[in-house]
């Protein structure tokens, strides 16, 4: 069936894969009709998809540095776009984003704008130039452009701080899903998740991660879009929800007016299980100050352009031209999911709060709601809660509480979709969290193995030895991440946003000015990275410990302060020290044109 070069056959290979996955969903649906239990279906979905990723990971094994670090630089634009989208959309995007929109409305949607707008910066400021540079890792660019081991090492430090903050959240998410789907305690599920993650990346490095990420994108996008379209059609809201939910959005506004946002007494709120929230903000009204919205969006955009696990995906394209186009495709594939999240939030909210719909629970009696099957399931999972605060016997808007994850995980069940969809959603969430975790762990391990071990400690190391070091680091970092994830220190979303702020504090300006400002030199870059990261971190600690902050910069946007310090110190220090030597200036000139050899020679 498949002849010739693997790369030429990609559309066919992934076409068959997609068909196979759809067939699997249908088989599961038939199984459900024939009496398969929901638990078996959940296990089948997660086990089957993880097994496929592991097989792809095994088939992609390699002993070549070029394949291990940059997938041989032959990933076609569209497929690299899919891989980047999976790399990018984490467990947070998949599981928590619709929930955030559901509860916080407009103020939260700054993340949607920020997490997409950042790609414009990636495409125009960085990706094509870093591709021309021909580096293996982001610190490789910093180290070669500015020169010196210290600048290289600082870039590795920033990368590690940002990516590690991010990866614990992803391992946490795989653990959550694995523990629900496989019905095992979270502490063990975290390690099941970790082993699945390592199966994809251990043997094939970037090559293995690339081809599993494409497979994971296909699973996660089907798992996200199918329920949204299905629910919308089932509710009669419109067959193409994205263009047809205006009436539903308006209806939610009406209901909000009618019910009003009643503030609960603190004593009442204490009885609500931890992590659950009620609807307290208007769905489609502007509920944040312009600066509140813009500062969050801006922090996420600059963070996007500084996160190494995204940037390194564009090192895998065959050319500079392809790198640019590939950013466009990445954002297109991300757009498919991000533009659906607000629609899912709308459908979910309306189906729960509209008394004229059969699924609506507001206005029903407490006893009636407590008798509903899905309420009992999700109440048991600690994701849903009702309580009769005012003692009138019926559920009011302010007496209904839900966890953020429930919007994605529970809505299919609430809307009365078969369980097979819930199994599919679990597989999608697993794919989203795994693909991001893989990209992050690989970014850290590659930076340490290539930049610290090979470039600084042992420049004469042979390829075989370098790849052993890279793989050992992969496992060590994975286990460190899982151990911290098992402690459950902070929520999924909070740590993701911090990662963006750390990355932009330390790396945004050293990367951008490395291409766009010839005068930027080593001393400036070192000051920019060190002072940027330290001041960002200092601000975060200050605000966390009761500091008032300034200019409306919060613990979610501290990167704005960090990157401002980074910019100023980098410019000042560069200008008071000697300008870069002629060779470096020539190097910058060469980076700026697509033609010619890459700066770091091939092989």
């Amino acid at each position, binding site marked *: 069936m498949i002849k010739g070069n693997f790369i030429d056959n990609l559309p066919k290979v992934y076409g068959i894969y997609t068909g196979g996955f759809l067939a699997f969903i249908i088989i599961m649906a038939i199984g459900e009709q024939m009496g398969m239990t929901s638990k078996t279906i959940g296990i089948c979905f997660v086990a089957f998809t993880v097994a496929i990723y592991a097989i792809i990971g095994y088939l992609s094994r390699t002993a070549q540095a070029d394949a291990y670090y940059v997938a041989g630089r032959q990933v076609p634009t569209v497929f690299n776009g899919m891989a980047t989208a999976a790399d990018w959309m984490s467990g947070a995007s998949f599981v928590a984003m619709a929930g955030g929109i559901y509860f916080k409305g*407009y103020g939260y*949607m*700054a993340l*949607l*704008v*920020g997490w*997409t*707008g950042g*790609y*414009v*910066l990636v*495409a*125009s*400021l960085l990706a*094509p130039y870093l591709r021309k540079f021909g580096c293996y890792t982001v610190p490789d660019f910093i180290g070669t452009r500015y020169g010196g081991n210290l600048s290289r090492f600082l870039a590795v430090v920033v990368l590690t701080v940002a990516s590690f903050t991010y990866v614990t959240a992803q391992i946490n998410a795989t653990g959550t899903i694995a523990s629900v789907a496989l019905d095992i305690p979270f502490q063990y599920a975290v390690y099941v998740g970790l082993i699945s993650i390592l199966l994809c990346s251990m043997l094939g490095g970037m090559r293995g991660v690339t081809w599993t990420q494409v497979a994971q994108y296909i699973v996660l996008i089907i798992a996200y879009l199918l329920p949204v379209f299905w629910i919308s059609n089932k509710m009669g809201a419109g067959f193409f929800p*994205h*263009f*047809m*939910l*205006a*009436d539903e*959005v*308006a209806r939610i506004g009406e209901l909000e007016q009618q019910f009003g946002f009643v503030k609960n007494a603190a004593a009442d709120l204490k009885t609500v299980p931890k992590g659950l929230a009620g609807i307290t903000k208007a769905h*489609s*009204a*502007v509920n*944040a100050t*312009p600066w509140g*919205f*813009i500062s969050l*969006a*801006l922090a996420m*955009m600059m963070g996007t352009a500084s996160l190494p696990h995204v940037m390194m995906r564009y090192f895998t394209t*065959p*050319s*500079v*031209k*392809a790198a*640019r*186009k590939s*950013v*466009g495709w990445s*954002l*297109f594939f991300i*757009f498919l999911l*991000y*533009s659906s*999240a*607000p*629609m899912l939030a709308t459908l979910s909210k309306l189906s729960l709060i509209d008394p004229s719909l059969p699924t609506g629970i507001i206005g029903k009696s407490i006893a009636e709601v407590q008798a509903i099957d899905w309420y009992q399931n999700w109440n048991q999972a600690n994701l849903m809660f009702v309580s009769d605060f005012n003692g009138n016997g019926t559920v009011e808007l302010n007496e209904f509480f839900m966890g953020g994850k429930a919007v994605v995980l529970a809505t299919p069940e609430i809307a009365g979709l078969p369980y097979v969809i819930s199994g599919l959603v679990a597989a999608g969430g697993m794919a989203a969290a795994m693909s991001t975790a893989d990209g992050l762990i690989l970014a850290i391990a590659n930076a340490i193995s290539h930049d610290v071990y090979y470039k600084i400690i042992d420049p004469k190391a042979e390829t075989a030895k370098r790849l052993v070091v890279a793989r050992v680091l992969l496992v060590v970092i994975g286990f460190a991440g899982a151990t911290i994830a098992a402690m459950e220190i902070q929520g999924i979303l909070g740590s993701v946003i911090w990662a963006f702020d750390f990355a932009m504090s330390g790396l945004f300006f050293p990367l951008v000015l490395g291409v766009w400002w010839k005068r930027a030199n080593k001393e400036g870059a070192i000051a920019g990275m060190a002072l940027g990261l330290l001041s960002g971190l200092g601000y975060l600690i200050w605000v966390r410990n009761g500091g008032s902050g300034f200019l409306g910069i919060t613990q979610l946007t501290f990167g704005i302060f960090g990157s401002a310090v980074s910019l100023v110190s980098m410019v000042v220090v560069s200008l008071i020290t000697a300008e870069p030597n002629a060779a470096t200036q020539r190097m910058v*000139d060469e980076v*700026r*044109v*697509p*033609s010619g050899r890459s700066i770091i020679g091939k092989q």
Partner: protein
Amino acid sequence: MSKQAQHWEKTRGLLMMTLAIWFVFSIGIFLFGAEMNEVTGPFGYPLTYWFTCQGSLGIFVILIFWFANRQEKIDEEFGFSERGDD
């Protein structure tokens, strides 16, 4: 002026234009979020709401492809485009 300097000048011009459009749809319009939301936007959604869930996102996708094409033209014009692959 050398060919390379001219190429870079045009590239920088394109960057400025791209960043200006980016600025408008990621930051500029949200300065007037509350006022704009009174207006009905495409498909009947409130305008600011529509920009946050579809409009700005879609514009970014188009903007990147537009930018990539323009940059390719600039590279070709000065003979700096790569040969032999796509």
